[in-house]
């Protein structure tokens, strides 16, 4: 009577076991890493909006200041969004019957707000405040990317905890002079004052900005 298993069976058995082990490791890695991937965090994707609003046209093209539309960014935790009325100050004069703008006109006519899909978002258990960042020399593009060149607004940064901490550990090199806050194409160059000078100028304290209670209150 021959044996039930041929010698090669040993090899296949160990290979199968190895594969299973590898699959288990790969699976855990995917489960572990997936939520932090750019894809899961919708980085670089522009959600469909009720109106295909273009920052490129309005900011770079027409030269409208961020604060005309995001009026509370310097004083409040919330940047603020333009009321329909602000769009209509221009669009009752230009592009008055463009089909694209029908939702804006209807909004004013029916007194129903426009509903934009959020792009930058942190969970409710994270405390975030725009005003302190603007006051301390952090520009819009550090967290939102080059918005002024976006034909459709997309998320440029992951806004994970890691992202916030990367700057909070050492904010100096990312601070910019006051007049560059709203320039979303700004990068550090030879004319930029040294990080230490900016830290001193803005009076960023030497306290620990990575304490959990800074962001989780």
């Amino acid at each position: 009577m021959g044996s039930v298993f041929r010698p090669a069976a040993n090899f296949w058995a160990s290979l199968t076991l190895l594969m299973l082990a590898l699959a288990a490791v790969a699976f855990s890695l995917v489960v572990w890493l997936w939520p932090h991937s750019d894809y899961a965090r919708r980085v670089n994707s522009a959600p469909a909006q009720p109106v295909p609003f273009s920052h490129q046209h309005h900011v770079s093209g027409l030269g409208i200041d961020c604060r005309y539309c995001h009026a509370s960014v310097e004083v409040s935790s919330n940047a603020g969004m333009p009321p329909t009325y602000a769009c209509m100050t221009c669009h009752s004069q230009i592009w008055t019957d463009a089909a694209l703008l029908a939702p804006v006109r209807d909004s004013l006519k029916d007194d129903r707000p426009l509903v934009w899909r959020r792009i930058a978002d942190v969970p409710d258990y994270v405390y975030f405040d725009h005003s302190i960042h603007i006051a301390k020399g952090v520009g819009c593009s550090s967290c939102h990317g080059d918005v002024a060149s976006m034909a459709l607004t997309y998320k440029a940064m992951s806004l994970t905890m890691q992202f916030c901490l990367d700057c909070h550990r050492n904010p100096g090199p990312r601070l910019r002079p006051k007049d560059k806050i709203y320039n979303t194409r700004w990068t550090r160059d030879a004319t930029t004052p040294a990080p230490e000078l900016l830290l001193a100028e803005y009076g960023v304290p030497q306290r620990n900005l990575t304490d959990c209670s800074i962001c989780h209150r």
Partner: protein
Amino acid sequence: MPQVKAQWRSLEELAQDSQFLLRVEQEFPGLAAALSAPRDRRETLTLMAAALALAGAGLEGCDGAPEGHLIPAVRQPPGIVPGMSDYYSNAHVEGGYAAGTVVKHFMGRPIKVEGNPFHPASLGATSPIAQAELLNFYDPRRSWGVTRAKLPRSRAALEQALAEQRAQLAATGGAGFAILTGASTSPTLAAQLEALRKAYSQIRWLHWEPIGRENVKKGLESV
């Protein structure tokens, strides 16, 4: 007018939601047994408060990016800055006497009642009842329009119902009809009630305060 939804759920209410319990059961096997054991409900809830809070209130938030909406105003109301709280002055009536208050609100939602320092009856202070007024703002049973048998009715329906009532009052002279109010110091209301009493002599006006000033008055008299 839209029906106002209840603004919050207590842990007790949550604990009666079958779907929620199913999720908790998956997370904490054995909870059902503990809940059905002959122990009083309050004690179980006390024991389970942390687990309920964890399972119900989240930690689901840690995966992926959150999603939401931005809803700007159609016309920006003056003086409202998104993300900032603001104040308005109000009055709190207790036992018929009004005291000035200042209500802190967050984009229209009241979050704190404090006394109005410029009002002589308050001078910046409030009673505990005025503080608790905040809960009233969010009471699901707070009146939100004309209703009858809990269903919304139009103003015309209200006027019709009042007209019918008036005809009935005229027939009976107000017998069997009573108006129930809290304590009031309003001369206007007093004059209106007096006019009603003149027109329908049998009408009765009853007033009652759950926490009245009778004892204060008695105390002062016996000093």
